[in-house]
């Protein structure tokens, strides 16, 4: 199943953009505050986006069909009349 970025990183992204957009209007001696806030927001935007895309909530990768000997403690009995193919 294709993972998508949720609303939380988008919310953080919008707040980050708001801070960055205010830089030109901010007195020069205080612009570092805008940049710091935007950088903090950008960091969490990326982290939250990665969590949505790659985090524990992602569905497991499809596994190859497990071999019987991986799951059964003993060798399965042969199927009656079959050529020794293990039961599933």
């Amino acid at each position: 199943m294709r993972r998508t970025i949720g609303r939380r990183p988008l919310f953080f992204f919008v707040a980050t953009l708001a801070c960055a957009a205010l830089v030109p209007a901010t007195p020069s001696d205080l612009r570092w505050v805008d940049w710091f806030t935007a950088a903090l927001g950008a960091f969490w935007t990326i982290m939250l986006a990665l969590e949505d895309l790659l985090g524990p909530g992602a569905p497991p990768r499809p596994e190859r069909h497990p071999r019987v000997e991986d799951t059964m403690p003993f060798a399965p009995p042969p199927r009656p009349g079959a050529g020794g193919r293990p039961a599933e």
Partner: protein
Amino acid sequence: MATVALVFVIAVALAFDYFNGFHDAANSIATVVSTRVLSPRIAVAWAAVFNFIAFLIFKTKVASTIAKGVVQPSVFTIGVVFAGLVGAIAWDLLTWYFGLPTSSSHALIGGLAGAGVARAGWSALIGSGFQKIAVFIVIAPILGLFLGFTILVGVMWAFHRYRKVDRLNHGFRRTQLLSAAAYSLGHGGNDAQKTMGVILALLIAAHHLPASASVPIWVVLSCHAAIALGTLSGGWRIVHTMGSRITKLQPVGGMSAEAAASATLFFTAAHGIPVSTTHTITGAIVGVGTTQRLSAVRWGVAGRVVWAWILTIPGAFAVAWIVFMPFHLAR
């Protein structure tokens, strides 16, 4: 006669400071009350004490910004300041009645601006000062939001292996006392200085002080005392909105929100930037709430808060303008 008017307007300014503390009391106590760290009565006393002693920590840079950085000092008269205060107080009372967490700071700035413009037109406003204030209307709550989120995530990561949850919560309840105290220091340090700035402007306008004067100590003490008394009187009506209706808080969340808000307030006070303590703590609480998920924040309530923000400066501006105009026309 002029002295009587001066004393009267100073009393009105201190009354505004008192209402500021009254109106903003919920900001100081909501988290410690909603997490049941303190009872409401003890919480307001705790907050009031730290509101008062904030003068020992902060200089008066915010006061200087209010007195000399928003409206041209030459525009200030006793009438202008009075009209500005009436505009701010009227707006505060209105939002208090409807239980909206608004900003007394922006109401005061809007009120002074409205009265200044009524007297001397738009040139009365100092663009750079308004610019700085306007930018931090947005930056302060967003900074509180990101810091609140960061602090809580950091704390959760630091203690994620700790198994004794009860002991952990007990520890965070104690640290929340410290963070609530820090927040009240920031609140007192930021908000009391706004009234100091108003009184300084009054004293300069009435020629009791030179234009280069700093804030007299009696003004510092009286403003901090007024805001502390206002906090002590409580603001119970608003506490539900701030503490529990925006998002549910655990002690660790309350501590993180207050730590984030107090860091923001300490910084802005040190740089002479008048910000809204209401906005800042709201942003921090939202930031803490979003560590769970975005839907953990009750956005309907937060939305009402945003509307109050948008309307505060224009609302107080309009009231102050209307109050001053009869004086201006009568001249």
